[in-house]
Structure formats: C-alpha cells, structure tokens
C-alpha cells in the first residue's frame, strides 16, 4: 500500500465530516444533499478500513460497530418524516412548515421536515456503506471472530 494513503487516511475523517456537515447545511440553498454527504463520509471511512485494517479501524472508532443500528435508525427517520403526512391527512412527503409559512432559521439552515429527511438519508447511506465495507474487509483480511 502506498505510504501516502497510510498518512492521509487516518487524518481524512475530520475534514470529511466537516465537509458533509457543510453539504447538508447548505444543501437546500446550493448543490448537495444527505446522499452525497453520506457517500463522502463513507469514502473517508473506507479509506481508514483499507489503511488500518478492519480490527484497528473499529477499535480506534468504536462507533463503527453500531453501524447496523445507525442504518436502521436513519431509515426509520426518513420513513417517519416521509409518512407523517398521511397520518394527518396530507399526501406523503408533504413538508412542514408549508409553502409560504415562516421557517425557523439557524444561519442558512432552515428547520423543515425535508432537512430531517436528508439527515436520515445521510445516516442510512453512511452506515449502510460501513456495514458493506466491514463485511468485505472481514472476508478479505480475515481475523478472529
């Protein structure tokens, strides 16, 4: 393996997380959404798996072991925000607050249900890719358990 990957991979996760947060926050005003943010973080994590091996990668970042639960939570968040509408008699994927109503702003981030849907999407995409990488790495690199 290239020594450049060995140096870069462990340090790439921080910038990748910042970039993903920026993409989600500005997503509604500019190009980008939860899916692309999730792919960016998953790529940084995949590079860690490649350079450190799955055991060290997961020991140094134990939250990775919660990936199946995180994926399930993300899917449930996306489902819940999407299908809250039919529960109160609106079409699925109606966004609240409605068009024209005032929105709570945090900087450029607007608190609407579509952003929550995006967050669920981000969690699911990241965690699903981590689960896949974990299984592929364990097949390729072997090890205990």
């Amino acid at each position: 393996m290239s020594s450049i990957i060995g140096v870069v991979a462990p340090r790439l996760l921080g910038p990748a997380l910042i970039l993903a947060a920026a993409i989600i926050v500005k997503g509604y005003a500019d190009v980008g959404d939860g899916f692309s943010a999730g792919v960016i973080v998953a790529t940084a994590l995949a590079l860690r798996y490649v350079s450190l091996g799955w055991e060290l990668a997961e020991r140094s970042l134990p939250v990775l072991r919660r990936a199946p639960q995180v994926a399930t939570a993300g899917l449930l968040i996306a489902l819940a925000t999407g299908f809250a509408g039919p529960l109160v008699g609106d079409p699925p994927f109606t966004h609240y607050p409605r068009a024209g109503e005032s929105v709570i702003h945090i900087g450029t981030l607007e608190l609407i249900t579509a952003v929550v849907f995006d967050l669920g999407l981000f969690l699911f995409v990241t965690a699903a890719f981590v689960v896949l990488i974990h299984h592929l790495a364990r097949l390729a690199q072997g090890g205990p358990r």
Partner: protein
Amino acid sequence: MIAGIGAFITIWAALSREPSQRGDALELIRLTPQAHGSDVVTVILADFRGLDTMVEITVLAVAVVGATSLLRRGRSW
C-alpha cells in the same frame, strides 16, 4: 457512408426541432422557492420526489442485506 449521412441528417433534424410542449422542468424551478429552498436539484430529491428517494434508499437497504447474507451467512455484523 450513406448510413452515416442519413443518421447525421436524422439527428440534426430531430435536434433542431423546437419542442412542441414544455416539460415539468420550468414548473419545478418556479415552485422551488415555495419548498423553502433555492437549489432545484436538492429540492426535487428531498421534497418534490421524496418518495422516489425513499424507495431508492430502500433498494440500497435490500442490496446491503442481500450482500451481507451472501458474504457472511446472514450475520448482521
């Protein structure tokens, strides 16, 4: 040679025709500010066609479950 020229003329004619009816694109762009957003692609993905995106990630979930059950005999981790 003749086939090439024929294809060229056909494509040229098709591309230089004025589209008779407009698609949904302009309507979607017009509605984007009402969805509290200004980037039309993101608004379409997360809002106008949210159901599409939802089913998309469901496909991803099924693919991951399928791959893991093939790779490690159904162990989730």
